[in-house]
């Protein structure tokens, strides 16, 4: 019993310490971004490995999610004779929710885990230590560019996901199921609002990008420098950032779409 309470206390303390470290690291990363400005080459390299390499999975998933939405939406709407509204259903689900959320989850699995593993291994093999001794701050040289790359890539990936998804819904709805093409687009345009829907979706994806890359970079930097420690950290990145994305999504949705 006493042991259980002690254990609880220890993990509580541990949690707060980690949270504190994560916030300190976050501010250091932000300061580091400033010194990154004259060195865009580093950023480009990271946007490549964080963003471009995630492109394929995002495009393919976006297409399939859009196609499934088209199919399911049609089956539901046709009962009410409202299949003209298919475009609205597909676009709103993608732009408001699925685009940012599914992209963030895939991003956590594809890019986040890779970031954690890479940074964790650099720590385990003393590369970060060696940089420090060469008077190169690893936070600025290694973490900041990776963080900024995630911050930039996420909204772009989410936009690509949504756009490809809308096209996927179009192929299924208009191409296969015979929904009127004009109705698909015009109903969509009539109901999807630029500020309310598109911009809020973009804001969501930016928030998710920050959270996922922050968690990934922190877990790597804070990993126990052994192969087991790195593998644990990688798992934690995927689990924690997925949970964070879903929780944050609820909060943001309540704030953005609450009143209307």
């Amino acid at each position, binding site marked *: 019993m006493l042991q259980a309470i002690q254990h609880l206390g220890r993990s509580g303390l541990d949690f707060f310490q980690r949270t504190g470290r994560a916030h300190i690291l976050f501010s250091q990363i932000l300061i580091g971004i400033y010194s990154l400005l004259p060195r865009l080459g580093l950023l480009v390299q990271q946007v490549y490995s964080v963003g471009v390499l995630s492109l394929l999975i995002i495009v393919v998933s976006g297409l399939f999610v859009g196609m499934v939405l088209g199919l399911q939406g049609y089956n539901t709407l046709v009962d009410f004779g409202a299949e003209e509204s298919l475009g609205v259903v597909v676009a709103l689900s993608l732009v408001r929710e699925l685009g940012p959320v599914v992209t963030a989850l895939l991003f956590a699995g594809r890019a986040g885990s890779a970031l954690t593993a890479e940074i964790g291994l*650099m720590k385990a*093999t003393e*590369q970060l230590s*060696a940089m*420090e*001794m*060469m*008077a*190169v701050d690893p936070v600025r040289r290694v973490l900041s560019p990776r963080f900024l790359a995630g911050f930039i890539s996420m909204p772009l990936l989410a936009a690509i996901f949504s756009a490809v998804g809308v096209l996927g819904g179009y192929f299924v709805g208009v191409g296969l199921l015979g929904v009127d093409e004009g109705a698909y687009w015009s109903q969509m345009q009539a109901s999807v609002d630029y500020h309310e829907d598109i911009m809020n979706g973009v804001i969501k994806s930016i928030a998710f990008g920050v959270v996922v890359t922050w968690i990934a970079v922190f877990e790597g930097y804070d990993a126990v420098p052994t192969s087991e420690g790195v593998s644990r950290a990688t798992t934690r990145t995927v689990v924690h950032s997925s949970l964070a994305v879903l929780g944050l999504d609820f909060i943001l949705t309540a704030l953005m779409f609450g009143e209307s």
Partner: protein
Amino acid sequence: MTNSDPVLLKVRDLHFSRGSRKIFDGVDIDIERGKVTAIMGPSGTGKTTLLRLIGGQLHPARGSIEIDGQRVNKLGHSALYTLRKRMGMLFQNGALLTDMNVFDNVAFPLREHTDLTEDMIRDLVLMKLHAVGLRGARDLMPSELSGGMARRVALARAIALDPMIMLYDEPFTGQDPISMGVLVRLIRELNDALGLTSIIVSHDIAEASSIADHIYLLSNGKVVAHGSADDLAESESEWAQQFLKGLPDGPVPFHYQAEDYLSDLLNGVNGR
């Protein structure tokens, strides 16, 4: 640099622990300017730890480390980084950056800290690589190098910025007799030609005595003996004699601290 104190690096009353285990328990070391000083001791005494303390990566629990008049553990972030630019450190396992090839690894500190043109960087890098005999390996990735080669590349990288003080963590392990000889000469030449101050951590008594002007023997968190190679050979200290002759029995324990062997065995699983 203008400081003309012959002692470049002063360690005073150094205390440091890892958990409950004391690594250093009141260590005093003086490293003289322009000399090669060897730090020797049994495996696990904390030689690597000492180098990290000197580099400011670890903080002593008590005592001070002073380099050229600056107290390492009291420096702010940017002052510490300025000081580190004048230090070169050779890591025990090389610690090369695995996402770059040999050339880029050696060029890394130059690109980070200087505004030299790529042409000049290329010349400098090839010079340093040539000095360690690996000019031909410039396009290899670190994963394609042997342990000894990786350490030589790391040495080339450590001297790229022409530091004022070089810290070598076991530079000789894993080198064949030829490259060992070359390395010993290289370290000596670097030291004399560039006016460096070198600290070498080593187990290798013969090589260390051949280049070191001064030797410190560490054991159990204390300095047990120091002096030139000849001083130590004639020293009365049992520690020094045992270590230099490589005898298993004597005051220097071969085993990591543990309870009595026999009772440990008899305790069985329950005792862990």
